[in-house]
């Protein structure tokens, strides 16, 4: 089934993308100009507004005015206009994409918002501290982290190609909801990091430590809306993108990795990268064109699905070797890897199992960074009709012979019995 979400993605890809950027102070426009400019260059119609602007609204007459929302306002106590945590959550459920940046002093509003997407920011005032991975420009508290790029998620679609450049980060740590299977760890903190208020003595065990702590998290909702949460507003700033990095181990990099990652991540979150769609599904008997009303058991079936991928704003055939089709009746009876063609049509031929029932052709393709491909087509599989069984089976020939010989025998016997005259009688006459 073609999901409506995919259709809306199509619209987003062709028309100009409207993106609302919320900021604490308009100065953010200057401090984050590289990031914002790159968005503009990629075709986003940016509206930069103060987060407490009383004229804010996401939708009008039930239609969303924006496809994307960027919240670079960690300090906002209350959104202006019609905006609230509920409306933003609704926006996500309605298919909108959101990028949120927090900070050490992020307001409760932002914390509340990120909990809705399965991420928790550490306590107010707490900052990520790492005594082994910090930048030379650090003020002594070791809160300017130079996170090694090995902590990045293993997905080129989301964070671009990896190189060894560390990423600069200053802000709070993120913990994910362990029960939420949809949250993705985009950037893990180094194993030596922990999160605590740097100005206070450490009295109890920090909430977030080491690899369990995230610096950047992402969520791809079931309707394929995407959300990125970062604990650091500066992560996206010009200063960090342009900065050079020097680690305590005296590794020196001319330029931090932030620029590349921010670029890639924003492409991902705003549905410019890693977007797939099912164009058409087709199934029929081998050698035919149209699907029958119901399949019969043991028939040979061909299943085709056409998948496309969004590349530079255009739908191109998707090619992969690991797309599988399942033929499911509660449990999958058949699970086969499909062969792709250059037009993006995946096809597979198989024999319907010898079990009747209501089946579904199911294609589920979940890969990190890609939209969820999900297609299900329900078909009925019926048993043989009374004419489809084998009519003459070899091992039954003796029975046929015996039945017919019996019939002939009885017929002959009754002929003899009825027309035989006792010889004595004829003599007597």
């Amino acid at each position, binding site marked *: 089934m073609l999901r409506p979400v995919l259709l809306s993605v199509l619209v987003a890809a062709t028309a100009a993308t409207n993106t609302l950027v919320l900021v604490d102070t308009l100065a953010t426009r200057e401090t984050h100009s590289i990031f914002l400019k790159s968005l503009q260059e990629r075709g986003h119609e940016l509206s930069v507004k103060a987060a407490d602007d009383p004229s804010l609204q996401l939708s009008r007459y039930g239609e969303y005015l924006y496809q994307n929302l960027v919240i670079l306002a960690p300090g906002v106590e209350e959104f202006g206009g019609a905006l609230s945590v509920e409306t933003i959550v609704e926006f996500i459920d309605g298919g909108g994409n959101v990028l949120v940046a927090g900070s050490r002093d992020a307001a409760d509003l932002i914390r509340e918002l990120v909990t809705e997407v399965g991420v928790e920011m550490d306590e107010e005032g707490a900052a990520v501290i790492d005594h082994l991975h910090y930048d030379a420009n650090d003020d002594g508290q070791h809160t300017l982290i130079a996170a090694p790029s090995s902590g990045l998620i293993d997905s080129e679609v989301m964070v671009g190609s990896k190189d060894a450049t560390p990423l600069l980060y200053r802000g709070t740590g993120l913990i994910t909801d362990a029960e939420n299977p949809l949250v993705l760890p985009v950037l893990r903190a180094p194993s030596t990091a922990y999160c605590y208020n740097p100005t206070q003595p450490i009295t109890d065990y920090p909430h977030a430590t080491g690899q369990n702590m995230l610096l950047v998290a992402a969520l791809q909702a079931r*309707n394929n809306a995407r959300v990125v949460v970062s604990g650091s507003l500066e992560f996206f700033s010009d200063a960090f993108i342009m900065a050079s990095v020097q680690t305590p181990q005296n590794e020196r990099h001319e330029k931090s990795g932030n620029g590349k990652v921010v670029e890639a991540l924003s492409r991902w979150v705003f549905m410019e990268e890693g977007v797939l769609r099912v164009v058409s599904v087709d199934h029929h008997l081998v050698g035919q064109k149209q699907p029958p009303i119901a399949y019969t058991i043991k028939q040979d079936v061909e299943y085709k699905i056409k998948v496309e991928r969004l590349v530079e704003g255009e739908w191109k055939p998707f090619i992969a070797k690991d797309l599988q089709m399942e033929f499911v009746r*509660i449990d999958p009876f058949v699970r086969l890897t499909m062969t792709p063609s250059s037009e993006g049509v995946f096809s597979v031929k198989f024999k319907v199992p010898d079990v009747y029932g209501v089946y579904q052709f199911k294609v589920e393709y979940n890969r990190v960074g890609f939209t969820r491909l999900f297609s299900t087509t329900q078909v*009925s599989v019926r048993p043989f*009709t009374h004419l489809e069984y084998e009519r003459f089976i070899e091992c039954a020939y003796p029975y046929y012979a015996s039945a017919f010989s019996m019939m002939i025998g009885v017929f002959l016997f009754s002929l003899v019995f009825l027309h035989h005259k006792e010889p004595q009688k004829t003599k007597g006459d």
Partner: protein
Amino acid sequence: MMSAPVLNYRTRGWMRMSVEKQDTLLKMAVLSLAAVLSFSCRLFSVLRFESVIHEFDPYFNYRTTKFLAEEGFYNFHNWFDDRAWYPLGRIIGGTIYPGLMVTSASIYHILNWLNVSIDVRNVCVFLAPLFSSLTTLVTYHLAKELKGPGAGLVAAVMIAIVPGYISRSVAGSYDNEGIAIFCMLLTYYMWIKAVKTGTLFWSTMAALAYFYMVSSWGGYVFLINIIPLHVLTLMVTGRFSHRVYVAYSTLYVIGTILSMQISFVGFQPVSTSEHMGAFGVFGLCQIHAFVDYVRSRLNKVQFEVLFRAVISTVAVTGVLVLVVLTALGKIAPWTGRFYSLLDPSYAKNNIPIIASVSEHQPTAWSSFYFDLQMLTFMFPVGLYFCFSSLTDENIFIILYGVLSIYFAGVMVRLMLVLAPVMCILSGIAVSSMLTTYMKQIDEVKTEKKKAKFEGNYFMRSEIATFFVCIMSVFLVMYTLHCTWVTSEAYSSPSIVLSARGHDGSRIIFDDFREAYYWLRHNTPEDAKVMSWWDYGYQITAMANRTILVDNNTWNNTHISRVGQAMASTEDKAYEIMRELDVDYVLVIFGGLTGYSSDDINKFLWMVRIGGSTEKGTHIKEHDYYTPAGEFRVDKEGSPTLLNCLMYKMCYYRFGQVYTEGGKPPGYDRVRNVEIGNKDFELDVLEEAYTTEHWIVRIYKVKDLPNRGA
């Protein structure tokens, strides 16, 4: 003006008729009146409500009949229904007795061919009354063969109104039993004829009638056991003759071959233990006939020697073969159903799905009187009269009576098999007694002198008159009772409920149809509805939606899965519902109206059935009871019960509702308690629709949360 001469002419005509003609006329009149009566007394529900199909199974039969009438026989035969038992599906053609559908579809086509436009539903609604009229006629003929026309007439009139039969054949109760009783009595009649005459013609007719019976009801097994038993009894009592030989051999061979043509029956007649009796008796028949032949050719001493030798070798080898085969596992052990007939508690202890059906419960003593009234007392009298003049055919009716009274005691639904024989035996009894005493009334007038000498027969005529009067009173009482029972107990179409208001007016609860039509018009075409199996047939027939389980309880594990969902907590149930692609859940709730056969009262069966399979071992019946072992929904109730899906679906928002004056909100009028768990929210379901009187509640299964857990 014209009527007087006509009447006059008629009177003269009547007078002029010979006794035989008068007799025939009288018989015809009584019979046709009985037939009309049996038709019309089954119409209470149609007149009170409307021409509507009742209960649960009839809805399936109606749906299949419609399919047959529209699509033709071969499509019907090959029909694979993907709307039922999702996602398993059901082969309708191979899992039903098609006799009922074929009968009504033929009637439908014939009537339409005659340009009588009638729709399938009306044919279905009135089929059972029509066939009960025919039953009346067949009963007359059967009883006539057994005892004479008098007994036949009494039996016919009795069966026309006997509640035990009416309960399954009122208008709208479109079920197999409606025609099966006719088929059964027809087969018996043909069989008696065949035994009496010993002709191939009647035996073949019996086989054909048997085929019709097989095609229409699973109860044919009773028939194929009682006829061999009759033959066996005749052999044992030394009444075996060529007539019986011809009758039984023909019936068995033709009947078995014909019965195997019904695809639901298939190879059962040659493979299952229920049919082995008939096969064994067929073999015995041949041996008996052969022995008779040998005996006629040999002298007595020679025969004795031969006979003993053969018998002992056969017995020894037979036992050996049996032991060896059983040891090798070639002979199937007795099936559960057989045990449940012999030991009524077998099914209850071992197969919850069989025991959960109310009509499989043992019969209460009171229901014998309720369904049969005076027949209960007349039955032994009839047996006495049969024993007093023993014939081949009387032995049959004695066997039939005794066996069916046992089976009726085991299962409520077999009351249906008992009712006809009760009527026949009572017909014999009443007619024999009345004949005796009526004669005495007449005799007295002519033979007054003679009476003086017979001291025993003091006041003979008075006693006779008195007896006849008493008998008439009994018969009138019987009629009144039957009419009352029919009208009060058996004429409500459980699809539309009615109750009496405070002022005595009739209140109609049409919630079922309201809910089914809601489903039909407001849910997607391919929506899957989960409900307890009782409502499956109705949902497919009326709402036209896919269902998970229905009244054809062929797959225990699937029903068990639904039971598990109902008995689990929301989280567990959600997993099961996702696995089965459930979109909507439907429950029946009577707490607001006091409708007692709702899902909470059936809930223990869901627990038992849910816990009866491997996947449901975590569901244990005692978790749903209070520590004192009670099933309660109030504050004392077990927490497992108060938090399971079924409880939550039934009582969602019920805690805020006032049901009865002077009682707290959330007062359940069926259980007569205030419910224990009042303010709760549903996590995985949302209420989609609740009918006017809250009898049917429909919930929609939510999708997985969009942003994860």
